[in-house]
């Protein structure tokens, strides 16, 4: 019901916005007619929300008046040339002719972009007074901040993220799932660890990394597509191992 009452105003706002965001002629908006419409409707508005929509419509109309002013100024200037003619001409001209026309009307700015002795002194003072990066981080983030690093299984147990039993159970479950899904074939790594919850995805990736390190699963990557495939191994893998870093940030 309220929508219907405000429909006229919303239409005015929409019309103004469409003219503002295109190169349409701002004189297509009949300002007088719209102002009269706002004037006639004004006594009907009682709620704050209605008055706000009314003032928004008024604001949009003022923007159109501003555009009309600019449009007239431009048209009155010597730069006004029939748009179709100039567009056709630009389309037909070769790039070289356009470049030549530009260069002939171009007066590049002359400037020196260099540091002055005063600037050098300022830079020196800034550098001298700049506290070490660790100190600055301390001010911003406190003293707990540590850089990204490696956390091993023992630490996770100590932190209480896993208990030893949970971890072993998790590994067995994940290996069973992997065997079931692969059935001797290769499957997509990201698909396997996929989960709506980030925590679960990270947990699955961590456990899977453990299975691979233990030689209970293996992975391969396709350099062209960048895809990574995994499969379960029936017997523990032997031979040389290598470390692979996989980003799981955009796993879904």
């Amino acid at each position, binding site marked *: 019901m309220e929508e219907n009452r405000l429909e006229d105003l919303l239409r005015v706002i929409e019309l103004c916005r469409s003219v503002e965001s295109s190169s349409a002629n701002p004189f297509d908006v009949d300002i007088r007619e719209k102002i009269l419409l706002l004037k006639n409707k004004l006594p009907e508005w009682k709620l704050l929300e209605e008055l706000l929509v009314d003032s928004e419509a008024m604001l949009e109309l003022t923007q159109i008046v501003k555009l009309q002013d600019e449009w007239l100024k431009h048209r009155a200037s010597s730069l006004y040339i029939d748009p179709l003619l*100039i567009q056709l001409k630009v389309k037909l001209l070769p790039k070289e002719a356009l470049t030549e026309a530009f*260069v002939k009307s171009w007066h590049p700015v002359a400037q020196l972009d260099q540091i002055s002795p005063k600037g050098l002194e300022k830079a020196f003072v800034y550098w001298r007074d700049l506290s070490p990066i660790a100190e600055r981080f301390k001010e911003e983030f406190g003293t707990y901040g540590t850089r990204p690093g490696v956390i091993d299984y023992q630490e996770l147990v100590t932190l209480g993220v896993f208990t030893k039993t949970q971890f072993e159970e998790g590994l067995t479950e994940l290996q069973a799932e992997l065997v079931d899904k692969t059935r001797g074939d290769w499957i997509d790594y990201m698909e396997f660890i996929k989960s709506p919850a980030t925590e679960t995805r990270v947990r699955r990736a961590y456990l899977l990394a453990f299975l691979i390190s233990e030689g209970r699963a293996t992975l391969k990557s396709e350099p062209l597509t960048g895809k990574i495939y995994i499969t379960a191994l029936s017997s523990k893998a032997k031979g040389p191992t290598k470390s692979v870093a996989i980003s799981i940030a955009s796993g879904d």
Partner: protein
Amino acid sequence: MESQDKALLERKVRKAFQVLVLQRGRNPGVKGWEMKRYLGLDYRGIMEVLAEDISGLGLEVFEVKGADGTDDSSRFLLRFRESPSVSEAETSGIRIDDLAVLAATIAFINSKQGRAARKEVEMFLREKFPKWRVEYSLDRYVKRGYLDQDDRTMLHTGWRTHAEVDEKTLMTLILSRAQAAPAK
């Protein structure tokens, strides 16, 4: 007394040249209010003297009027009196294609009464230039001040175009150029 005045004037003219030629901040040029601070209330007179002094070097002092049209908001800068040749422009590291994109964009915006939707400009330019060049060049010219892009992604000619490009000459030259002969 007269020699003292002359020395003071010379000093102010030197100062005017220094502040105009050395870039301060992101954009070249010095605003009217800054000039007043550096040179005093009679800064326009000093700049007239400077303009005479530098004309022999092929330079001129150019004023770009600010949005509100006041003296304080005007931007003063030094620019070449004469236009460079195409080969000179090329040696400064600017590609012909880039200049052609800018010329076509300025002409298109002017033909649309000084404002055109970026999408519209891109569509127009893509008839002549590859998509990647159009997007790259428009972004670059917005960044360098040749074009202005507002929050409704409408493009206008920027302050640098007003400072460096004689838009009337550009439009006339484009209109007067003969079109390319059709390929046989």
